[in-house]
């Protein structure tokens, strides 16, 4: 008879769950700056340090730009580093995000996704992380509080894999996940330590083997540096799978880069990121009961983009709807939409596709909204076409 594993349950908000995961990861250096809706993460972590529950240097920087710079320096010195931010804070970090990935610093950062100014808004959308899309970070998205916890632990495993050594962001929807209390299963400290033991950073600052970091490269060598980086980030998918596999062994929870839901025979597939994926799944399940052939594909990893997995899922769909909680102003659509369109085109899949821009600045996307959206998709399939390519779903006109 197999031994029954003791399940540890806690009730935490998304922010608290992320902080708890970072504590269990025994991070060495935390540098951050307060910003809603992320602040609770650093409040919790500073409390853990102040109470002696976590042996780490907690540095409240004077800006997010400095917070990420502190993390970068600390990571290269061989410390396990963590930061968290949102919105304007992530935008202020932007310059250093590129440098952190290029210098191969395995920093883990939680992003409590929030809209960008102006107008000022503290609520959820994905404009912040989409602005950081091309910075060379691995971007993971949580659908619920359990995933925010799990992905934070997995992020360390992925970031510190010597095959890649790349920074990883864990995205959780501002307020929707950061401030919602959910029951979750947590691992024991021992299990976490076994999963992500401290391994020496292979290129750490070493006085016996001095290295120069962040040198200058002119046109005769710069492109080769960038090509190396291109090759490295494309190694992330197998590293993700490996991290997920070992995580599932201790937790029983399995993560894929894309999580399909009822997609096998689906005529209509909706693609989304973050907490909306759960809303869509709930309604899709309900509609399946009415024989509507609808499926949902939620991306756990947005960068690098799981192109082949998405292409496989969409290969036989009649209709694809992309949910964008951000927009590329002046571009051909939202960021996820353009990624999906490119994937469809590159893989020779021709199907009716539209972009649904929704939920900007925390505009609710409720179960009724999801149901309305599915009805719209069903009608469009019956007609055989969308009447627009880009819908601003839920906007007051």
């Amino acid at each position, binding site marked *: 008879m197999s031994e029954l594993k003791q399940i540890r349950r806690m009730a935490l908000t998304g922010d608290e769950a992320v902080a708890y995961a970072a504590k269990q990861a025994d991070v060495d250096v935390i540098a951050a700056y307060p910003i809603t809706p992320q602040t609770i993460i650093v409040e919790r972590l500073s409390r853990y340090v102040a109470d002696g529950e976590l042996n780490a240097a907690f540095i409240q920087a004077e800006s997010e730009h*400095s917070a990420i*710079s*502190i993390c970068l*320096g600390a990571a290269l*010195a061989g410390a396990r580093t963590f930061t968290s931010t949102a919105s304007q804070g992530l935008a202020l970090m932007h310059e250093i995000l590129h440098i952190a990935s290029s210098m191969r610093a395995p920093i883990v950062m939680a992003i409590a996704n929030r809209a960008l100014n102006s107008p000022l808004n503290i609520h959820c959308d994905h404009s912040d992380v989409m602005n950081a899309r091309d910075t060379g970070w691995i971007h993971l998205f949580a659908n619920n509080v359990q995933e925010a916890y799990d992905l934070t632990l997995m992020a360390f495993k992925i970031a510190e894999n010597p095959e890649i050594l790349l920074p990883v962001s864990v995205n959780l929807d501002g307020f929707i996940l950061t401030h919602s209390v959910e029951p979750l299963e947590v691992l024991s400290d021992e299990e976490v330590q076994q999963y992500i033991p401290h391994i020496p950073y292979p290129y750490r600052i070493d*006085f016996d083997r001095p290295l120069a970091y962040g040198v200058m490269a002119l046109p005769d*060598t710069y492109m080769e540096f960038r090509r190396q980086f291109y090759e490295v980030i494309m190694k992330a998918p197998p590293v993700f799978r490996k991290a997920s596999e070992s995580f599932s062994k201790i937790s029983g929870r399995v993560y894929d880069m894309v999580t399909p839901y009822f997609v096998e025979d689906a005529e209509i597939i909706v693609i989304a990121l973050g907490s909306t994926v759960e809303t869509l799944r709930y309604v899709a399940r309900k509609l399946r009961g009415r024989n509507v052939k609808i499926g949902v594909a939620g991306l756990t990893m947005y960068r690098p983009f799981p192109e082949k997995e998405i292409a496989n899922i969409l290969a036989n769909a009649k209709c694809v709807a992309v949910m964008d909680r951000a927009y590329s102003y002046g571009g051909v659509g939202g960021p996820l939409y353009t990624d999906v369109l490119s994937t469809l085109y590159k893989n020779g899949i021709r199907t009716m596709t539209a972009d649904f821009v929704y939920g900007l600045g925390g505009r609710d996307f409720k179960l009724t909204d999801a149901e309305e959206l599915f009805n719209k998709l069903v009608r469009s399939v019956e007609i055989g076409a969308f009447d627009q390519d880009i819908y601003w779903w839920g906007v007051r006109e």
Partner: protein
Amino acid sequence: MDIAQKYFKTIKDVPIEDYFAPGHRLCAGCGPSLAMKLTMKAIRMPTLVVNATGCVEVSTSLFPYVSWRLPWIHVAFENTGAVASGISEAFRILEKKGRGKMHDVIAIAGDGGTFDIGLQALSGALERNHKMLYICYDNEAYMNTGIQRSGATPTGAATTTSPAGKVIPGKQERKKDLIGIVGAHRIPYAATASISHPLDFINKVRKALEIDGASFIHVLTPCTLGWRYSPSQTIKIARLAVETRYFPIIEVEEGRVRINIKVNKPRPLEEFLEAQGRFRHLFQSENKHILEMLKQQVEENWNRLLKLEEIGLYA
């Protein structure tokens, strides 16, 4: 010279080892290059250098060559104080957790990277009082991008963005009081230095490294191209800056000021200014008022420092 504790009494005490290797691409007669060489003479153990973007950085790290015989890191222009903070704290916590060792960290940035774009990161680092030495090499303008004015450019100086025009003759604003800003953080140790006084400078570097907390040195480093003088004159001009009281050599310990080089009989400021092309227009009769303004600033600053030293407080 009046440094309380002298680590290097004569030039013969200075170690022969060069951690700043020859063959870098800085100009002939470059003031900052000498500041780097001298700084590296004062290190007391394997030391990490964090370098801001700037002349020194681009000229010493052109792939695949590097001029630093110790670990060296460059991240960006404005965050040197922050990167050094992170490394210093990482060394400290890793030592505490038995996975590493504490080492000296020296952050090096120019005046643009310190007075202007890096001021916030510097202030944050000083306020948090990490164990690190920050050295600002001041050549009084953005020399790496071709001589643009900075917060360190003195009144009247001509640069490519504050040219000596027919209507506006050079920079109209004051040079920032950087050592005053740093001193206001009440860090354990801050000082000014000049490459014309190498023993004073390297003793200050060593003294700063001995401090368990944040320390700061502002070193004046003339720039042959930007200040417009012959490369053979760098040291002479740096010395004139001290001897005319243009650049007072002081220490500020926990806020208390001490003037290290008492310039009792200053040379006329004109001797310092005349030696440089960037001030040439100040000697035209229509710009005499700017020359007078600069002289007044220098005199006021000196008298202020004397008073502060006398009171024993940094105001």
